[in-house]
């Protein structure tokens, strides 16, 4: 079975500062990795995903993440945050291929709060 650990439950940051949201995963097989964002009282929106190839993936809203296989990490970064980035961010994994039809396993979420 796979698992995801988001190392910070809350991350406060000032506007225009850089931010990193940390995600580590555990799996005995290859996985695909995703970051989703959830704004208050809304659904989950995909920010970016890593399937294969370049370990640095770019997503929407200026976010990017780097897949590090040796450290089993997939940290999310943004060089300069905005007030509108305030939301909860979920890291998720899915078994690559196999017979499992794609269920996602989520981390516990990180609440990013951007202060003016």
């Amino acid at each position: 079975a796979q698992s995801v650990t988001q190392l910070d439950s809350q991350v406060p940051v000032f506007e225009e500062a850089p931010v990193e949201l940390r995600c580590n995963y555990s799996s005995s097989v290859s996985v695909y990795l995703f970051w989703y964002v959830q704004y208050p009282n809304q659904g989950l929106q995909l920010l970016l995903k890593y399937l294969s190839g370049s370990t640095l993936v770019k997503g929407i809203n200026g976010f990017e993440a780097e897949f590090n296989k040796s450290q089993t990490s997939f940290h999310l970064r943004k060089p300069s945050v905005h007030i509108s980035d305030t939301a909860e961010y979920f890291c998720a994994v899915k078994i690559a291929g196999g017979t499992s039809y794609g269920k996602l396993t989520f981390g516990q979420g990180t609440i990013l709060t951007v202060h003016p």
Partner: protein
Amino acid sequence: AAGVIQSPRHLIKEKRETATLKCYPIPRHDTVYWYQQGPGQDPQFLISFYEKMQSDKGSIPDRFSAQQFSDYHSELNMSSLELGDSALYFCASSLLAGAGDTQYFGPGTRLTVL
């Protein structure tokens, strides 16, 4: 672009009642997933369907059942509701399950059990 539609958006039920949640996937998507997100929790996988057949099952109570219909919409039926069933229920859809497909989530149905 069309998104995943869920109805109703909000639902209030009493204990021991039944509830039916509906999900309309993105057109041409062949796979539907249901997740439950309790207050302050991460989403937990319940069940999924691929081409109208159940494809995977997670931590779904026996009181819950679901199906996917010929038009690919899906319904989650919940009976003998308990207070602990109060949660946000998400539906997600994707194309070509099993590959690196991306799940697109609906806005969710917030179920409150009183």
